[in-house]
């Protein structure tokens, strides 16, 4: 048997609904026989009547409702149809859920699922990666699973966590990524994983960019360089210790992310390594991000806008020469 990243997300939700009466799923088109725009909730409404609920096109109210239910002891999962539309719910996520524990000492255990990242032909409003934005604000955990196993276990962890979690699932990985089985073990939340060991350069990445980074590493391996690739798994908290330990081994750092370049996860990784591990660096750290324009529609433009294995390899070679 093989299971895709998307199926793992569905299976995690089925397990959560089965094991925990407090869990319900709230989002546009998630219910009925439809099961979501990407079918991440397919069949769940039938299996769990009254607990997988369609909502109006009201992102703000979807999250507001989840917050209210969470305060009354529920564990809601909100599905945004696309991460991009969560901008409508920013106020509820950042200002209401994100401030609540700090202000009142009562945490808000909601999970907001964001189908994130670019796919061919999706254009400016169905392609965004918003993890940097959410990570910027206090009070939230931001997950960016890059593997089928993490997609499954981290969603289960997200719902168990008492604080609000923004769970960024990558649409490009939905069908592309397969595993043989659902995992039995899990890695602790907040810990980064060494996805590939190496000695010459550290690439720090997450989500779909992990796979582009791994391809770039394989390419460069043919030239005799061994690149270590770190999968952050959660971008907040950011596992600085694992990143620093890797840079201590390699002396070089390249941070790769799909979100826009100004600020963000890659900037944060470089800032932390530069301030806490400057002495470990043999060369100036570098980063690769999407371009500082809206995300284009045409595949020719999109594949240039988005960081590719080729671009990552080019940047890595430059760093290795320094």
């Amino acid at each position: 048997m093989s299971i895709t990243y998307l199926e793992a997300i569905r299976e995690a939700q089925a397990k959560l609904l089965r094991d925990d009466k407090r869990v319900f799923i709230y989002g546009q088109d998630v219910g009925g026989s439809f099961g979501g725009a990407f079918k991440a909730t397919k069949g769940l409404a039938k299996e769990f009547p009254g607990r997988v609920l369609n909502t109006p096109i009201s992102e703000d109210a979807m999250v507001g409702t989840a917050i209210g239910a969470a305060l009354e002891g529920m564990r809601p999962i909100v599905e945004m149809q696309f991460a991009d539309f969560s901008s409508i719910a920013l106020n509820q996520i950042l200002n209401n859920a994100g401030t609540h524990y700090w202000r009142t000492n009562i945490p808000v255990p909601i999970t907001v699922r964001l189908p994130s990242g670019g796919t061919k032909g999706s254009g400016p409003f169905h392609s965004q990666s918003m993890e940097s934005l959410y990570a910027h604000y206090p009070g939230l955990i931001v997950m960016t699973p890059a593997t089928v196993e993490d997609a499954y276990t981290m969603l289960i962890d997200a719902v168990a966590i008492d604080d609000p979690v923004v769970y960024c699932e990558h649409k490009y990985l939905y069908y592309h990524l397969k595993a043989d089985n659902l995992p039995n073990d899990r890695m602790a939340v907040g810990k980064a994983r060494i996805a590939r060991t190496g000695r010459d350069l550290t690439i720090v990445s997450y989500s779909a960019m992990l796979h582009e980074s791994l391809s770039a590493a394989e390419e460069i391996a043919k030239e005799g360089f061994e690149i270590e690739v770190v999968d952050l798994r959660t971008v907040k908290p950011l596992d600085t210790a694992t990143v620093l330990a890797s840079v201590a081994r390699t002396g070089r750092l390249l941070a790769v992310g799909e979100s826009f370049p100004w600020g963000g996860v890659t900037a944060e990784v470089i800032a932390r390594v530069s301030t806490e591990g400057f002495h470990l660096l043999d060369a100036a750290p570098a980063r690769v991000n999407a371009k500082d324009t809206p995300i284009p529609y045409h595949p020719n433009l999109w594949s240039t806008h988005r960081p590719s294995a080729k671009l990552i390899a080019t940047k890595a070679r430059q760093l290795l020469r320094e």
Partner: protein
Amino acid sequence: MLTFVAGKAAGDGRLAACAPQISFGATRRLRITGVKRENFLRSRPDVGYNRPMLQTARPKKKSQPKAPVHEKYIEAFRWILLTRTFEEKLASMYRGGRITGGVYVGKGQEAVSVACGIFLQKGDIFAPLIRDQAGRSAFGEPLVDVARTYFGSRTGPMRGRDGNIHRGSPRDGQLAMISHLGAMVSVVVGSLMAKRGRGEKNFIGLTTIGEGGMQTGASHEGMNIAAVEHVPLVVVATNNHYAYSTPNDREFACANLVDRARGYGFEGYELDGTDLAQCLDVIGTAVKRARAGRPPQLVVASILRLAGHGEHDDFSYVTDDIRKEPFAIDCLQRADAFIKERELADAGTLQRWREEAAEEVENAFSAAQKEPVPTGEEEDWCAISTRDLVDAIE
């Protein structure tokens, strides 16, 4: 002829008699929104605000029979008195430089607000906004917690992390508002869904909003989703005729805000917010109907804010014309006059109530003032409860 939603002849206490007997059949006395209103001026550019959405009750002719007084009238009056006394003291402390940040009072809105809190029971959810001290107190918020929050006391519910009206006690059903208007509507909806899901009975949620806050997207989404989920929610909207300094004619262009009730699938009422009896009748009835499983309820009250947006605001934008409108009457003075007219309390009793209110206010402030304030060094700078997931940023 008056166009009260509460009935053509409604005045002080008119509905008190019939409120307990409200039926949901054809004989119900409260107008459900959607009745076409004639002769309504949409806006008058020469005035700068929309004409009042309803006419305030004129003094009744002596020959009219006096309706019984609402059973909660005196209790409500005393909450209003306490609130006014507290907020006057608060404003004076602000002017004396003893309060940091802003002070936001509900002067003129207390009758509406107290009616929002006074009918709520344990197990209900209340999401008040900035001018709801009377309602918060009536629903059980200790006055000392208000003083603590203004002083930023470490002992208070917000522990100096948030101030003034941004406070609450969610475990007691009083949600802690955020400043973004309309955001709390859907939060109440979610809490009510959870209660229903658990099999709780006989609970409701009540949230307040202003005519300003009604123009946000969050408010619209929240009210719509409330009706879709058919939760027992009452939304009490107070039109105080200004969103900060902006008059009604730059806030909305619909003939009457209560007409939105029909658009959302709510039942709607309007009322004269200067008249405590009517506030108790209409809001009490809306609460009762929500509890009975009717669709969500929208009450639109009309008043004039008799203070600035906050105490930093001299409200010079309030025109002389609007100050003469019937809705500009002070609800406390009106209730005071009503008590005297109906001989519900003698002068000595009224004086005693004032003194007791002053004493309670004094006690609250002096207790809060003695408490420690937070310090930056000792603060627990942690925004999440899951300690092992705190981001270790330098």
